[in-house]
C-alpha cells in the first residue's frame, strides 16, 4: 500500500515535469504531503521538535466534528452528505487554485472550514447555495487576507453570514423535522424550496420532510419551549450539526482534551451566557427564554466549541480569550432576546472577531508594561 502510493507519486512527478500541466504541481505536492511526512530536519537549536503539526491538528478538528455530522445525516436525511461533499469539493478546489496562483503549498485549514460550514446550514438548503457560500466564504473570508493564518474572521462563519444575508428566506425561514426510525441513513429529503417562494405559507412540501421552525424561532414567535430532553439528544429541527447537544459536547471535549481548542473560550462563553441568560430571564421572561432551553437550543454549543475556538480569528492571549468568551456570551443573550433575529451566536462571534487583535494588544500592553518606558 505504502510502496504503491510512493511509486505512483514518483511516477506522477516525473510525468508532470514534462507535461504542460505543470501548474498543477501544488496539487501533487499536496497529495504527496498528505501521505508522507516531510523530510526536513531541524537546522539550528533546538534540535528536537514536537511531534505535532498542522495537518494533525486540523484533521483532529474534523474528527471532533464527525459525531455532529453523522447526527446531521441521521436526523435530516443523507442529502446532508451531499451538502458536506459539495462544500469540500468547492472549498478545496478554490484552495488549490490559490495555492497554484500564489505558488504556495496547499494549507490544510480548508479541511476544517469545509466541514464546519455545512454543519451550520439548514438541512434542506439548495445544493448550489452550499457551493456559493463556501466559495464566497473562503474567497472573502480567507484568501483576500492572504490565506490560512492571516484571516480576521472565521471563514466558516463568513460563508454562513454571506448566505444568511443573501438568502435570508432560505436560511431562516425553512426547517425540517428530524426523521424517525432508521432516519436519514436510508431516507433522502428532497429540496424543500426553490428560490421563488415569497411567503412562507406557500412553501411546497416534498419527500418525507415535514416543515417545522427551530426551537428558538418557535420561542420568538409563540413563546413555546421545546422539551429539554429533545434538545439534548437532538430531536429538534435546526441546522445540520447543531441540534444534538450531547454529540457537540463530545466533540468539544475531544478538542479540549487534545489541547487543540483552549478550554477558556468555551468555558467563558457558555459560563457568561448562562449567567446573563439567567439574569435577563429573571428580568424579562417573555423575551428571554429560560437558561436550560437557551443553552441547549440553537447554535450556542456548536459555536462555543467549534467556531469561537478558532485560534486564527480569536485572541491568542489567555486574558483575551476569557474576555472574548464573556462578551460573546453577553452578545448572544442580547441578540437572541432583544433583536429581530432568533439566533445570535454567529453575529456575536464574528463581531468579537473584529476586536480580537485589539483585545490581545490591550492584554499584552498590560502584561508587558514594564517594557514600555
Amino acid at each position: 500500500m505504502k510502496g504503491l502510493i510512493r511509486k505512483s507519486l514518483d511516477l506522477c512527478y516525473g510525468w508532470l515535469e514534462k507535461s504542460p500541466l505543470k501548474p498543477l504541481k501544488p496539487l501533487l505536492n499536496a497529495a504527496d504531503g498528505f501521505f508522507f511526512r516531510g523530510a526536513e530536519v531541524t537546522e539550528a537549536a533546538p534540535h528536537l521538535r514536537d511531534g505535532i503539526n498542522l495537518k494533525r491538528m486540523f484533521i483532529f478538528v474534523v474528527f471532533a466534528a464527525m459525531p455532529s455530522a453523522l447526527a446531521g445525516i441521521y436526523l435530516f436525511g443523507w442529502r446532508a452528505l451531499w451538502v458536506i461533499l459539495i462544500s469540500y469539493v468547492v472549498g478545496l478546489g478554490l484552495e488549490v487554485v490559490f495555492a497554484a496562483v500564489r505558488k504556495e503549498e496547499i494549507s490544510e485549514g480548508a479541511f476544517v472550514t469545509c466541514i464546519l460550514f455545512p454543519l451550520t446550514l439548514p438541512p434542506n438548503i439548495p445544493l448550489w447555495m452550499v457551493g456559493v457560500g463556501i466559495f464566497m466564504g473562503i474567497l472573502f473570508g480567507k484568501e483576500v487576507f492572504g490565506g490560512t493564518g492571516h484571516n480576521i474572521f472565521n471563514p466558516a462563519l463568513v460563508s454562513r453570514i454571506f448566505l444568511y444575508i443573501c438568502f435570508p428566506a432560505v436560511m431562516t425561514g425553512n426547517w425540517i423535522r428530524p426523521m424517525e426510525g432508521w432516519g436519514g441513513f436510508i431516507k433522502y429529503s428532497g429540496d424543500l424550496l426553490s428560490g421563488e417562494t415569497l411567503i412562507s405559507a406557500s412553501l411546497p412540501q416534498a419527500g418525507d420532510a415535514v416543515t417545522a421552525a427551530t426551537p428558538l424561532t418557535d420561542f420568538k414567535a409563540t413563546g413555546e419551549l421545546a422539551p429539554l430532553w429533545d434538545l439534548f439528544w437532538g430531536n429538534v429541527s435546526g441546522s445540520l450539526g447543531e441540534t444534538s447537544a450531547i454529540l457537540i459536547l463530545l466533540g468539544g471535549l475531544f478538542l479540549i482534551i487534545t489541547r487543540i481548542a483552549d478550554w477558556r473560550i468555551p468555558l467563558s462563553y457558555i459560563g457568561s451566557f448562562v449567567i446573563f441568560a439567567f439574569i435577563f430571564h429573571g428580568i424579562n421572561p417573555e423575551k428571554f427564554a429560560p437558561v436550560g432551553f437557551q443553552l441547549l437550543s440553537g447554535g450556542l454549543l456548536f459555536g462555543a466549541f467549534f467556531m469561537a475556538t478558532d485560534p486564527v480569528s480569536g485572541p491568542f492571549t489567555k486574558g483575551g480569550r476569557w474576555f472574548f468568551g464573556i462578551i460573546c456570551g453577553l452578545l448572544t443573550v442580547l441578540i437572541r432576546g432583544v433583536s429581530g433575529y432568533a439566533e445570535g451566536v454567529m453575529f456575536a462571534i464574528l463581531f468579537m472577531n473584529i476586536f480580537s487583535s485589539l483585545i490581545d494588544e490591550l492584554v499584552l500592553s498590560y502584561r508587558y508594561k514594564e517594557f514600555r518606558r
Partner: protein
Amino acid sequence: MKERLMIAAVLLLVSIASALSLAAINNVSFPVIQRNQERQFKVALLKALEIPFDSEMPEKAYNIQIEEKSTEEGTLYLTHEDNQKDLPVTGVAFMLKGAGFWGPLSLIVGLDPADMSIRGLEIFEQEETPGLGARIEEKAFRDQFKGKQIEKKIIVQIKGAATGPNDVSAITGATITSKTLEKIINETSRPYIEAMRSLNNG
C-alpha cells in the same frame, strides 16, 4: 487690504451668480416637482380605493371621485356613491405612518365603511432592504390584506401558514419589516376609525 477686498468681492460675486441661477432653475422646476409628488400620492390613494383611473392624468379621477375631509385626528379621503357628495360614502382611505427597519414607513389603507374591511393597501413610502423587506410592495403580499377586518387585530404570521381569519403570512426572512407593518396598522389606525364613526353618525 486690497487682496482681502478682492477675496470678498469674488466670493460675493460667485455666491450671487450661484444663487441667481439656482433661483431661476428652482422657479422653473418647482411646480413640476410639486405636481410629481402630489400625483404619486393621488395614484396610491386611488389604487388603495380600487378606483380605476387614467395613468396619464390621475388628477382627473382624483378630483372627481375623492373628497378630502379634515378631521381632528387627521385627513380622511372619501368616495361617494356615483361621485355625489350627498350620497352615502362607499370608501374611505387614510395614511398611516411609522418607523420601518431603515427609515420611515408610510402606507395608505382603503376601507369599505360598510363592514370595516380592507379594500386595498398601498405602500407609499419605504426604505426597507431591497429584495427583502422591500417586498412588502409586492402585490402578492399586499393582496393578502384584502377583506381583513381592520377593527380586529391583524396578525402577520411569521411561523408557518396563516390560518386565522385575520391572519396574514409574513415575508420569509423579513420578520422585522413584517412585524413593523402589523404594528403600524394595528396601533395607528385607531383614531381614523374613530373619526369614521363620528362621520357616519354625524
